[in-house]
């Protein structure tokens, strides 16, 4: 059953208190991410300790750590191989430290996305930017896993078709055009289609119909059951 206009207008999934907490969480994540790059090396163990708490908290909130671990392991392997190839064995520790800083920089973002609802992030952004753009940011972040999956699938399919877009082949700028044609072009088509579908879906739910920001109720009303 469709949800009435009045329920659309009166729904407030995020309370004032939770909005404040979400805003504080965003500031904390920003500060910790910044510290990962700006803090001197001797401060990093302290930062790691703080972020370990965030990691545990995120996992307690059903956050899946497998993606994070896979990303860091791949980054570590890639970095070490490149450091060995370019600088020799004497600068590998620099590469490890760089990846450690990357890990410390992305953990707060991971924690934020696992502990703060996207509605709350949207509400905070909605206070700082026009509603439409706040919606765009939240929709884009929500669709990031989908986009990453699309990139991966398109890339693998084009590799299977024999496109010269393997990481080693992409070191040659002459293959960048092929990468653009084989991967970026289909990806942009997908993004255009996705944008069209999302816009239609949002408008079907009266997005932009009222000057005041409206939210889809987080739980079904009694009338709908």
């Amino acid at each position, binding site marked *: 059953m469709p949800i009435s206009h009045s329920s659309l207008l009166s729904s407030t999934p995020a309370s004032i208190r939770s909005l404040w907490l979400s805003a504080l969480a965003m500031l904390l994540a920003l500060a910790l991410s910044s510290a990962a790059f700006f803090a001197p090396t001797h401060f990093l163990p302290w930062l790691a300790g703080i972020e370990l708490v965030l990691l545990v908290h995120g996992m307690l909130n059903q956050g899946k750590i497998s993606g994070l671990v896979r990303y860091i392991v791949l980054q570590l392997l890639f970095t070490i191989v490149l450091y060995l190839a370019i600088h020799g064995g004497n600068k590998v520790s620099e590469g490890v430290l760089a990846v450690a800083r990357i890990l410390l920089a992305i953990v707060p973002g991971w924690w934020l996305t696992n502990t703060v609802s996207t509605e709350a992030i949207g509400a905070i952004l909605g206070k700082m930017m026009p509603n439409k753009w706040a919606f765009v940011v939240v929709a884009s972040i929500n669709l990031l896993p989908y*986009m990453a999956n699309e990139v991966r699938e398109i890339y693998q399919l084009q590799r299977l078709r024999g496109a010269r877009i393997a990481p080693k082949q992409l070191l040659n700028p002459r293959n960048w*055009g092929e990468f653009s044609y084989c991967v970026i072009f289909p990806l942009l088509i997908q993004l255009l289609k996705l*944008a069209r579908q999302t*816009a239609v879906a949002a408008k079907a739910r009266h997005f932009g119909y009222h000057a005041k920001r409206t939210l889809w109720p987080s739980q079904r009303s009694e009338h709908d059951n």
Partner: protein
Amino acid sequence: MTTNHSRGFKLQDALFIGFCATLLVALKSMLRLKLGLAGHSMLLMSFFYLTCYCTVGRIGAITACGVMAGAVAAILGIGNGGPLIFMKFFAPALAMEIVLVLVQRFTNLRWRLVIVALAGTLAWAAKGLIEDLLVGMSWQVALARFSWKVLQGGIFAVVGALLVLPVVRRLKAHDLVHSESKLDQEL
């Protein structure tokens, strides 16, 4: 009161800009390793910013994409700029937009895109120059680093700009670009 006919970008265009910005940030986060490839981010920035402009066909698309990219990067904690990450995306976008307005009536689209991409590189390198000076580097060292960044970033930015037109022309051939602007006739 309804706001169906609000000014600004259509929701579909705004979403496309947002998706491009998010993809830009995600790809940049994969390529951010500092291995002597300074300026590689200009390849992505010039490509995605100019693709947004050519696809949406409106002035303001580049700035919007820069703002979105900065916001997404700040939220996801991506990028090594910390609190300055927003400026890292916004400054080149704004410079590109301003230069785009200035050169709109000159030369053909391909050269306009190259000029705009180079303007973005200058803004990107200038931000680095300011940061270098703020941390206490001498003028000579800071200027040398600035020149090196302009050179490297400029090459990447031009490559990114040159990749835009073939991609957007294919999008247009597939009837996926529906703007009715002057730009549409130039494609």
